[in-house]
Each structure stands twice: as structure tokens, then as C-alpha cells.
């Protein structure tokens, strides 16, 4: 399959279109089948991926508007490969976990398939315009999911989500157009191909402006402090599946953007702005961890904890060495799986009690032991316990950033303390203590459908915690190539000093 | 000696008269006249510049404008008559259906 990437994009698209004519009572099976096939296709992509090769693979190139250098240009490397696999997996599990009592199941499944198209499109695009198209397109299904299936304030939340992220990405679009303009004035032809842009050495002053233009687009998506306030509303109002996908995949688009665009395009500016970015990241880590601790609503705790963890990912991205960047990419995956699982778990209890307030619970461990066990494992992964997936990414991200600034890493390391504080207090309030509320005494434990969605996640979280190598090595190869490229391209002595190429890369030369 | 600037000044004066008419007048018919004056102001400027620069395209534009203005008046007047028949007035202040 030469054009597996196109298949990955168009298969769910076609399936979603066909979904309109599928009968209502067979739509669940249809949706699960389509998502499962898509997931298997991504697995196939992984197995036929050459892990030793750090560059782009499965490249497809079809000229669209040649005069302006806009092409249908796709490809994956180790950095994007696993995010694609994760996106397909989370869509599948999200559809599996859809409750019986959800209204308009058909529309929901079709929307999710459209969303999958957009998510996979973002991570396989190597052309800025195609990337931007998918990037913006991903907003629409999510807007619909929040707006149609959300809670009481769903319209406010949906519109805030849409306009906020949209405003940010428009500024990014201006940045993209400007790079294309610079490229045109240097090379004489228009091009929006990322690989062409990589070759472009921009003057430092231009890099600095462009860095902030892209920063706004990505930072709102991540979301970085102080652009994060849309996220609690979106999570608070979105249905379970919406939160799962939002936390697992959509947020990763922001951090992925930093790795894919900001670092290789503006190496000098990225190095120059390590300090402000790291300070924002640390504010995210500490401040949102505190806000998470103050929450009364389980889902909001997890929403804020997402922001806090994204702060650690940001530190890893700006570590400028393979350890940190590999760690941050791995952390994107682990955070995707773990926070996705946490949102699924909150959805479980919400389905039963129609409330997410911690004060409504207490003693759930005695009533729902299986639920408590799975929640406990995922919680430990979220807190970053060794031998779960959460540790590897958090450890590597912090270890990488330590090279840049030990003091800031110490502050960022508060993540492991404060994470334990809010997560354990959530667990204590909801699961420990006596069962105080009468209606909690008769709650039934996890059903088969819920287990089917959760057990794979638990298995992966533990498997990749014990043996992360199959995932780490391909990521690492691509990241090493990226860092070596940045080092080569860097102009300022400061950037040359801070960008740290691994020994193995140096020896290879 | 009458030079280019005289024509242009005449054109500007005519245009200003038309503009004031457009702004001040309330009657739609008067508005029409005012726009015609403005169009003709432009025509004068075109013709004068055309002769000054020895380039016929200016005069060509002037003819175009005359033709367009004529057809416009034909259509416009028809519409006006319809409007008058329907609402019994040509006063602009009576037509505020598009208020925001």
C-alpha cells in the first residue's frame, strides 16, 4: 500500500458519508467496525514503518495549485506516527464507550468519524495549507459535539472553544503566508511544503516575529497559560467522548505544532525564547495544579490536570536535546491515553449518577471495586509512577530540560508533588471513606462495554511503562535527526550552545 | 487661456455640487439628478485629461459612462415609478426597512 496515508484520511471520510444511509439500529456496529478497521490500518502503518529511518516515510505528493506551491503532500515520521495510532485508538475506544442512552447516536458517530479524518489529516500533512485546512476542520466536529450533546452551558462553551482557537490559528495562518512570501522572494517560486521551508534560513529578527505568530496558534491549542480558560468550559460541557478526544488528541496538535513547525523553522528564536516559554510552562504546571486541587467537580480536576501536564510537555519540547523532545513526544502519547482513560472513567460514574461532584460520592471503592482498581491504576499513571507510561514521558521531559536550566526544572518538578496532591485527594474524596449517600449503595460495577473500552488502555499504559522501547526508539530516531538539523541550521552562538546533539549522532558523522 | 486645471476645477465643483445633492436631498428623483451631475463631472475630467494626454481612451470612457448612465436612468426611473405607485412617496425618510 503505497498511499496508506491517503487511505487513512479518506477511508473514515467515505465511511462517514455512507453513515448517513446506515440504519439507526446498526449504526453502533458500523461505527465500531469503521473505527476498528482504521485502527488496524494505523497498526499496519506502524509495522511497515522503517523504525531505523528518522526521516519522512510513506510520502505522497500530488500538485494541487502549482502556481502557489500548494500540494497534497503527506508523510509520517517517528514523531507523528504514534500520535496517529493513538488518535485512531482513542476514536475507536470513544465509540465503543458511547453510552446506550445517548441521543442521536447516528449523528454522533458520523461526527466522530469526521473528526478522525481531521485529526489524522493534521498529523500526516507536510504542506502548510493542507495542515491548516485539517487544523481548522477539526474544530467543526468538536464544535458540534459540544454544542449538540453538551451540558447546560454548551453553547457558551462551544462558541468559546471555537472562536478562541480559531482566532489563534488565524494569526498562525498569517505567519505561514509570510514564510511562503519569504520563500518566494528567496527561491523565486511559491511553496508551502514543509520540507522546502525547512531549508529556508530565516534572519533572526524575522524568526522572532514568526515564532510568536505560530506560538499564539499553538499555545491556545495546547492550551498554555493564560490562554487556557476555554478548556475547563469545553471539558465541563462536552459529553464524555468529546472530552476524551479533546484531551487525548486535539490538545496534542498544539505541542505537535511546536515540534513540527517552531523548532525546525525557527531554531534561533526557539532558543532565544526558552525562558519565557519555560516560565509560562512552569506557571501552567504549578498554578493549574493548584486550581485543579480547588475543584469540586471530578471532571474539572482532570481538565486542569491536563493543562498542568501539558506544561511538562512544553518543558520537554523546549529542552532542545533528544532526551527532552523524545520524552515530550512520548508524554503526548501517555497523556493522551491516560487523560482519555480518566475522562472515560468519569463518564462511567456520570452515566450512573448524572453528577460529577466529588461531594456526591465517597466510598465508591466498596461499591464498585473494579472501577476503583482501574481508576487507581490510571491515576497512578497520571501521577507518574514508574512502570506506568506516565513516568517515562515525565521523567524524560524533565531530565531533558534539566540540561537547559536546573532551577526551572526543579520548579517544573513540582508537577510530581502537586499532581499527587490533587489526584490523591480526588481519589480519597470519591473512593475512600464510608458510603454516605444512599443512592451510591446500589451502583453497579463496570459493564462489559465499559471494560472493553478501559482494559485496553490499562494494558497499554502498563505495557509501555515497562517496555517503552518499541515506541521510544522510532520517536528518538526522528528527534535525533530533528535536533541535528536544528543544530546545523542554528545561526546564533547561543543556539549552537544550547541545542544539544546526542553523542550517537555525532559519532555517526 | 483655459488650461487643464480649469477643466479639472470645473469637474471638481460639479462633483461637489452633485455630492452635496446626494447627501442633502431627500427626494429620490433629486438624488438621481445629483448622481447624474457627478457622473458628468467625471466625464468632463475624462475628456479634459484625454485631450491633455493625447490618449483617446479617456474619451472612450466618457462615452461608456454616458451609455451606462442612460441605461441606468432608464432602469432607475422605472423602479422609481414602481416605488411611487406602491408607497405613494419618493421621500427617502420613508424607506427605512433596512434599519439594523
Amino acid at each position, binding site marked *: 500500500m503505497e498511499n496508506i496515508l491517503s487511505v487513512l484520511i479518506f477511508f473514515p471520510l467515505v465511511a462517514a458519508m455512507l453513515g448517513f444511509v446506515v440504519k439507526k439500529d446498526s449504526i453502533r456496529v458500523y461505527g465500531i467496525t469503521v473505527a476498528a478497521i482504521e485502527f488496524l490500518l494505523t497498526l499496519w502503518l506502524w509495522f511497515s514503518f522503517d523504525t531505523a529511518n528518522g526521516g519522512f516515510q510513506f510520502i505522497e505528493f500530488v500538485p494541487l495549485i502549482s502556481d502557489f506551491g500548494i500540494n497534497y503532500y503527506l508523510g509520517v515520521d517517528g514523531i507523528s506516527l504514534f500520535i496517529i495510532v493513538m488518535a485512531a485508538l482513542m476514536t475507536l475506544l470513544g465509540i465503543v464507550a458511547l453510552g446506550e442512552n445517548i441521543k442521536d447516536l447516528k449523528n454522533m458517530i458520523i461526527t466522530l468519524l469526521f473528526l478522525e479524518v481531521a485529526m489524522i489529516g493534521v498529523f500526516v500533512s507536510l504542506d502548510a495549507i493542507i495542515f491548516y485546512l485539517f487544523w481548522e476542520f477539526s474544530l467543526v466536529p468538536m464544535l458540534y459535539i459540544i454544542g449538540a450533546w453538551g451540558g447546560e452551558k454548551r453553547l457558551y462553551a462551544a462558541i468559546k472553544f471555537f472562536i478562541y482557537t480559531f482566532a489563534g490559528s488565524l494569526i498562525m495562518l498569517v505567519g505561514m503566508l509570510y514564510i511562503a512570501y519569504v520563500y518566494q522572494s528567496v527561491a523565486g517560486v511559491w511553496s508551502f511544503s514543509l520540507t522546502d521551508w525547512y531549508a529556508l534560513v530565516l534572519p533572526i529578527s524575522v524568526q522572532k516575529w514568526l515564532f510568536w505568530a505560530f506560538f499564539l496558534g499553538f499555545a491556545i491549542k495546547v492550551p498554555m497559560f493564560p490562554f487556557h480558560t476555554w478548556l475547563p468550559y469545553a471539558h465541563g460541557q462536552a459529553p464524555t467522548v468529546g472530552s476524551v478526544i479533546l484531551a487525548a488528541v486535539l490538545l496534542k496538535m498544539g505541542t505537535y505544532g511546536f515540534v513540527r513547525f517552531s523548532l525546525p523553522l525557527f531554531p534561533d528564536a526557539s532558543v532565544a525564547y526558552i525562558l519565557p516559554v519555560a516560565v509560562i510552562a512552569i506557571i501552567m504546571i504549578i498554578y493549574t495544579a493548584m486550581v485543579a486541587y480547588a475543584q469540586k467537580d471530578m471532571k474539572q480536576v482532570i481538565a486542569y490536570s491536563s493543562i498542568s501536564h501539558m506544561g511538562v510537555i512544553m518543558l520537554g519540547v523546549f529542552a532542545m536535546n533528544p532526551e527532552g523532545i523524545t520524552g515530550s513526544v512520548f508524554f503526548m502519547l501517555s497523556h493522551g491515553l491516560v487523560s482519555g482513560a480518566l475522562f472515560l472513567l468519569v463518564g462511567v460514574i456520570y452515566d450512573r449518577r448524572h453528577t460529577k461532584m466529588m461531594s456526591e460520592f465517597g466510598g465508591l471503592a466498596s461499591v464498585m471495586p473494579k472501577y476503583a482498581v482501574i481508576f487507581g491504576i490510571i491515576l497512578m499513571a497520571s501521577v507518574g509512577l514508574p512502570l506506568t507510561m506516565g513516568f517515562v514521558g515525565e*521523567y524524560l521531559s524533565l531530565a531533558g530540560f534539566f540540561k537547559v536550566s536546573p532551577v526551572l526544572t526543579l520548579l517544573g518538578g513540582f508537577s510530581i508533588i502537586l499532581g*499527587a496532591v490533587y489526584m490523591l485527594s480526588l481519589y480519597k474524596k470519591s473512593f475512600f*471513606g464510608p458510603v454516605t449517600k444512599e443512592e451510591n449503595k446500589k451502583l453497579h460495577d463496570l459493564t462489559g462495554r465499559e471494560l472493553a473500552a478501559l482494559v485496553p488502555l490499562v494494558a497499554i499504559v502498563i505495557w509501555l511503562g515497562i517496555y517503552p522501547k518499541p515506541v521510544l526508539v522510532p520517536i528518538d530516531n526522528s528527534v535525533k535527526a530533528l535536533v541535528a538539523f536544528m543544530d546545523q541550521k542554528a545561526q546564533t552562538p547561543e543556539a549552537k550552545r544550547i541545542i544539544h546533539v546526542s553523542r550517537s549522532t555525532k559519532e555517526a558523522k | 487661456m483655459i488650461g487643464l486645471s480649469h477643466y479639472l476645477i470645473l469637474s471638481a465643483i460639479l462633483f461637489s455640487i452633485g455630492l452635496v445633492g446626494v447627501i442633502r436631498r431627500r427626494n429620490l428623483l433629486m438624488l438621481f439628478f445629483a448622481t447624474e451631475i457627478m457622473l458628468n463631472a467625471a466625464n468632463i475630467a475624462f475628456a479634459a485629461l484625454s485631450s491633455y494626454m493625447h490618449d483617446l481612451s479617456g474619451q472612450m470612457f466618457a462615452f461608456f459612462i454616458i451609455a451606462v448612465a442612460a441605461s441606468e436612468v432608464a432602469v432607475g426611473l422605472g423602479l422609481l415609478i414602481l416605488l411611487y405607485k406602491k408607497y405613494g412617496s419618493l421621500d427617502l425618510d420613508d*424607506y*427605512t426597512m433596512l434599519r439594523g
Partner: protein
Amino acid sequence: METLVYIALFAPLVGSLFAALFGMRPKTLWTGVVTSLLLFVSFLASAMLLKHVYTVGAVHAELMDWIVAGDMRVPFGFTVDEVTAVMMTVVTLVSTVVHIYSNGYMEHDKGFNRFFSYLSAFVFSMLVLVMSDNFLGLFIGWEGVGVCSWLLIGFWYHKPDVGRDVNPSISPSWAANEAFIMNRIADLGMLIGIFLIYWNVGSLNYQEFFAAVPQLSHGMLVLIGIMLFIGAMGKSAQFPLHTWLADAMEGPTPVSALIHAATMVTAGVYLVIRAHPLYSEIPEVSYFIAVLGTFVAIFAASMALVNRDLKRIIAYSTLSQLGYMFAAAGLGAYWVALFHLAAHAFFKALLFLGAGNVMHAMNDELDIFKMGGLKKVMRWTYTYMGVASLALAGIWPFAGFYSKDTILEAAFNEQSYGIWFVLWLTAGLTAFYSFRLVFLTFLSDERYKQYGFHPHEVQKYVLWAMFPLGLLAVIFGWWKEEFMAFVTRLLPAYEMSEHTEHMVWILIIVTMAIAIGGIVVAYIMYAKRLRRNERIEQSLPYRILSNQYYIPIFYEKAFAKPYAELSDIAWKEIDQQVVDATVDGIARVIEETGDGTRRMQTGNLSDYLKWMAAGALILAVLAIIVAMNH
């Protein structure tokens, strides 16, 4: 030999997973039996490894790669050398005893299977901790024992929170969270230490790090030493991170015996011993460790003097003994620290298990003021606890005598007379509070009768299970010379100066004198009957001691509460009132601008024409300005 390493390591894990399979079912006897057997297998393998290390030498095994990124390569590597072999044997021996004991102790608990699953998982984590050949592997075990400790302290999670005046630990789940979070604070220090090692040495392997120690600058070594020690402080509950240990007594008593006395809390001491090539290079940090250990020794002992809670007294004594170990390690007498660690593991586990018997007999009553005279019904338990207390007090010829006395000699030898004096004084206090506990529980008047308890001795097999510990608490010290010869193959030998050699007998006599003195005082005060003095109990020093120097309350007032309030402010005031309000404010400005300018849309054509004319005029003016500038 690698097979033996893996058997020793994975047998407890297999047991844990096996028990976990039945974790949600009611008690099934064989989960207890199977896990105990697997633990025994692990013990046998450890003992064989000990013999192998003794006769042949260290064993190294590498399972597979764990984290590979950039230049970092961390495998699951295991080394069994002299120190590890000793630790493994101690850990698996005590664990086996505790497992068998728990079969009886947890007999009627509905979480029986779950308990064994956690307990075996703990042993696995502890073995990972001591067997790893690199710092990150140690960190796996380090966090693993932390989680198991969290699970086991909070084992009776269904109990509600109560006020501090009713139960100083509030509730099992509260104590569990406290322990976990306190440990996490220290773990951050340790993690920073690991980062420092990685970026300065390029490897986390012990051997490579120790080989690189001479090349590193002194300042860097000091920093690494401090950071690693911060980690050790958390796990070994050193001041100021000590409060969790006493609260951890909320867990079932076998847990206290295994985790919070014999094994996990000694992990910090193990780390310092393991990193001795580092700490030998930085005497100032080592001296600080010794001073802190000494301080904790007397600090904890003072709190034990007045406490009425059976388990808390033993917990404070554990804390105090950990102080001794750190003092020894800090003074450079690493093998002595390890020796005391092993001896302490035996007699302290025994003491805790004995306390468990008492609790069992007394329906989980912990107040020793409500006991007394239990000797008649619990002769065996009395003997065990008496032996353990004699060992703890350091009476010849019990195990504690040899180890503790050597620590005092080392302190004297280093001419740290201050440290020596404080430790000497603590030895007296230790003897006093240990026997205060024994006398108030087993001798004196039978106060329990007025509270309506019907104590009874525990099952025979439980008592037999405790026998190995009882035996070791007596005879372990006799092997001091052999032990020293064995572990100093790896650890630096510690030579006493000639001056000390001359003084040894005097030192021993002085130490024995204060220990026996302590016992005698306890005997006079408590052996006949409980004498309470209202005036003393109301006095300020007494209240300070019984409230643990008000440190838990201080922590709550100074850290926990302000953090919660600050969090609330961060959410309600900053996040909602400032950050989000700004965003909404921007949106509102745009909306209101739109709303305001809507009035331009009058619907009147001539108004539109005016706007158009104005716009055209502005554009014309702009065009003219631009044209003039060119």
C-alpha cells in the same frame, strides 16, 4: 546464578498477581498460602545467592532495556553483591514471616486476598529497590514501595475521617495520602539528584557513577549528595519529613512490621550505604547526615516517652533507630549502619508482630493505659516482646547490643563527643520507653478487665512463625565479626583508633549502665501498677511531647491549609476573575462595539450616502498624503 536472581525477584510478583486475581472475592485461604510459599521460595533463593556471593562473588543480570532516548540508556539491570545479598535476605526473611503471620492476623478480614496481593507487591518493589544496578531502577522500587505503602496504610479505606483529638492520624486514607505526598516531596529531590548524575556522568549505573566520582568537582558531589539524601530523608522519615511514619500506623499491624519498621523505611539508609563512594568524598554532607540522624534519634525517642498508643510508641522507636543508622552511616561506619539495619529489622518486626498479637487480643485497642497484666494470658507474646525490647534497649547479649554499641563506639572514635553523648542518652530513653510499654502491657494491674476485654493468645502457628525473628533478635549480634568481614569486602572497613580500643570496655559499661538504668526506672514507675500524675500530664513539656511538638498541626496550619486556600483563590479569584474575565472582556468589547455601531445602520439611504461620502473623502485624503510622501 541469574536464574536465582530472577526467582528471588519475581516470585513475590507472581504471588502478588495471583492473589490479585482473587482480589475482589471473599477470603480464599490458598491465596495466603501460595503467596507465603512463593515468598519462602524467594527467601531460599536469596539465601542461596548470599552463599554464592560469599563463596564466589557478586552476580550481575540484565533483563532488558527500559528507557532508551538520546544518550540515555537505562536497562532493567540487577546486581547482587554483598550489601544487596544481605538486604535481600533480611527483606525476604522478614517478609516470609510477616506473610505467614498475616494468615492468622487477617483471618477475618474481608480484604484478605487483596491484602496479600499488596503485601507481595511490596516485597517485589523492595527487591527491585535493593537489587537494581542503577539509580533509575532504584527509583522504580523507591516509588513502588511508596505506592504499596499507600495501598497498605489505607487498607481499611472505608473508615471515615475523624478529628485529630480522637485519632491523631485522622483516618487510614488520610494517613496514606500524607505518606505518599511527603514521600513525593523527597522524591523530587532524588529525581534532581538523578538528573545531576545523568548530565554529569552520562550514565545512571552505580559502577560508572562511582568510577566517575573522582573526576567530578567537589561542589557537584556535594549537590548530588544532598539531593540523594533528600530522597532518603523522605523514605526514611527523617526530620522534617517524619510525620507520616507515626500516622502510617493506621495500616494493619503486619504492614507496620514489614514496611514501616523492617524494610521500606530503611531504604534511605540503604541508599546512603550504597552510595558510600560518593558520601566518603563529601565529609561535610556526611557529617550533616550524622548530626541529623542523631537529632532524630533523640527527638523521636522523646515523643515515645509519653505516648499511650502501642503502635505509635514502636513507630517512634523505629524513627529513633533510623536516626542511629544514619548517624553510623554519616560517620563513615557504613557496615555498622548495615549491621544495625539488619538487627533492627529482626527485633523491630518481632516487636510489631507482638504488638499485633496484643491488638488482636484486645479487639484492636491500642491504649496501653487500658492494658496491663496480659502476661498471664499471653505468655509467648510476652516473651517475644520482652526479647525484642531487650534487643532494642541494647542489652547484652541480644542483637541490639552489638549493633548499637558499635555505633556509639564509632561516634566516640570520630571524636564527635556531642553525637556520642546524645546517642548515649537516647539509649537510656530507648530502654525506658520500651520497657514502659512492656510493663504497662504485660505486667502491672489488669486494667483491661474494667473495659471488658477478654484477651486470648493467638494461634500456635502464628507464634511459631515469629520464632525465627525471636531467635535472630537474640543471636544475630553474635555474628558481628563474620558480618563485618563479609560486607567490608564491598564497604570500606572501619578501623577504631587505638585510643578507642583502650576505652571500649569503659564505653560498653557506660552504655549498659544507662540502658539498664532506663529499664529500672520503667520498672519502678510502671511494673506494679499504672501511676498517673495529673500535674505532669498537664505540664507544658508533657503536652508538647504528646502532641509531637505540635509539628503535625503546624504543618497543617502552615502548609496544607494555606495551600488549599491559595488554590481556592487561584481558581475563584485569578482564574475566573482575572484570566477568564479578560478573555470574556475582550469578547464583550468586540460585541459592544458591534452593538454600538449598529446604530449607523439606520436604514435611511441618505445616511448611508453620507457615510459613503465621508469614507470616500477619508480615502481621498489618505491617497493624497501617500502620493505626497512618494
